[in-house]
């Protein structure tokens, strides 16, 4: 088994972003994210995105891994774009030269039948095309629409009128740029910061808030213990899975009912073991003088370097500029 398993997205590195203090990173990113929603000018947004990516390049992170982190959000992004384009009908219609982006579709009996057949085919064949399901789906939908524009056979059931408006384009681009920037920022944070440092950073940020300090310290301890024990529990669950597998349990196949049974056969021993661990851990912590919520000193403290100070200066300048541009020029 791979013992060096890393949880979270942290990628080992030594760039200046890696070395920034976690609390600096969190605060700067937080205000950058806020400014993304203050700015509405397309070019400004594009500028910010380019700037973020420039910073990403300086960290020497493996880019494919960085891009992979967007994959989960790709579907959501596509849907937002499609909805924006279909339902935002203000502003002038987009045109390039004489060609205007406005189409009329007739839904005819024939195309409806073709559509239904393709859908059925998709459902049946979908079992075999695991990987590109979503793309296949989009292509099929587009094909059906295309069919309708070239085949004109009566009787017509409905006539659609789809046109692409300038405002739809703008707002779609805005959403696109914002989401992409947000994802890049959060990826930048999680790729360059160890989970435990993130935890410490959050604790540092909330530390000045006296009335919250007790809860923050308890929460911080909970998080750090979770981070400490997730790999241990993960290894343990692998062991149990292997033990169950060696007794003939098959976790890949089986009906839903069997799967639930298998999951329970994993969860119950895990629960019992975790409970035993928790009891031991509580004893060990108490014996070493831990009192929940009590003030503690810290081994890891904020190490302010010159880059941290520069980052804060940049943040102040950047944020002032964003606010000013909003107030003065409405960007």
């Amino acid at each position, binding site marked *: 088994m791979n*013992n*060096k*398993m890393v949880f979270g997205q942290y990628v080992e590195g030594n760039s200046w972003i890696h070395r920034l203090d976690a609390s600096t990173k969190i605060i700067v990113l937080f205000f950058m994210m806020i400014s993304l929603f203050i700015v509405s000018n397309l070019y400004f947004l594009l500028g910010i995105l380019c700037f973020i990516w420039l910073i990403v390049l300086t960290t020497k992170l493996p880019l494919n891994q960085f891009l992979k982190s967007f994959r989960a959000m790709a579907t959501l992004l596509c849907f937002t774009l499609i909805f924006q384009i279909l339902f935002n009908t203000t502003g002038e219609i987009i045109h390039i030269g004489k060609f205007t982006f406005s189409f009329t579709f007739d839904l005819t009996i024939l195309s409806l039948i073709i559509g239904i057949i393709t859908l059925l085919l998709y459902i049946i064949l979908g079992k075999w095309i695991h990987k590109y399901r979503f793309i296949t789906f989009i292509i099929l939908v587009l094909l059906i629409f295309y069919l309708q524009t070239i085949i004109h056979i009566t009787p017509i059931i409905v006539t659609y009128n789809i046109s692409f408006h300038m405002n739809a384009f703008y707002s779609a681009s805005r959403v696109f740029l914002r989401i992409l920037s947000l994802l890049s920022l959060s990826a930048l944070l999680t790729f360059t910061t160890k989970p*435990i440092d993130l935890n410490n950073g959050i604790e540092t940020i909330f530390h000045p808030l006296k009335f919250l300090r007790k809860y923050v310290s308890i929460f911080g301890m909970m998080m*750090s*213990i979770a*981070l*400490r024990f997730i*790999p*241990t529990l993960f*290894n343990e669950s692998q062991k149990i899975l292997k033990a169950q597998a060696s007794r003939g349990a098959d976790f890949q196949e089986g009906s839903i009912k069997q799967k639930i049974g298998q999951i329970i056969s994993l969860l119950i021993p895990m629960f019992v073991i975790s409970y*035993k*661990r928790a009891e*031991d*851990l509580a*004893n*060990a*912590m*108490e*014996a*070493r*003088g*831990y*009192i929940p919520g*009590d*003030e*503690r*000193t*810290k*081994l*890891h*403290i904020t190490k302010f370097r010159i880059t941290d100070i520069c980052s804060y200066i940049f943040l102040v300048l950047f944020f002032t500029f964003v606010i000013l541009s909003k107030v003065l020029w409405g960007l």
Partner: protein
Amino acid sequence: MSFIELQDVYFRYTKDDYALNGINLSINRGEHVCILGHNGSGKSTLAKILVGLIEKKKGHIYIDGIELDEKTIDNIRQKIGIVFQNPDNQFVGVTVEDDIAFGLENRKVSRDEMIKLINQFSSKVSMQDFLNRNPEELSGGEKQRVAIAGVLAMNPEVIIFDEATSMLDPKGVKEVMEVIENIKKEKTIISITHNLSEAKHCDRIIVMNQGKIVLDGTPEEVFKNTNVLIESRLDILDSMKLIDKVKNSTLNINKKQEVEDALWQYAYHK
């Protein structure tokens, strides 16, 4: 009064059964005491009472002249540290240095002092090159050594080892035993152990059975009481004879010490 003094201490988890059934015990400063007893004889309960994890139902406990109760518990915890059995479940920090720091952080030791102590005690258990490792990257023996460093850094006067080597492989046992041997001169040590070759080297052995102390004396004295040992389900006599034979044999056995240790182990677990 001796350094650690228990007078008529009773404890029970459930209504019907006393896990500690009238313990009278005094331990002097600097002694190395081993506690033997079959599973469920109340050894861990005794350890937990001493470090204040559970509270006695009856009797008096004095450590360094101070009676152990709710008010003095924080004070007494500074004098007494404990290393538990499971290496994984007592590793609190995300890395070795975090774990050694844990107790110091609780005690509000300043950061500079902490770093000094971490360096000092990680070297003492030969873990100074592992400070940034996660527990996942350490062997059981290494984790136990880190736990010992964490306890030592808090500078207690007594350290209790509750079967601290029983989950380790032979190499781990050896490493941890070396560390214990090393700190013996400076600390009072109470070892709850299954390792008879360790028990042999104790100043004093206490045998527990059903929540009571049934034997208390030097190893020679204790191992003479064969009947009590059998009653306490520490059935080690046959093997002890065998061990004597191995020791005095003129046979050509390469690793006499290892054979002897193995026999001790076997004797204990029988």
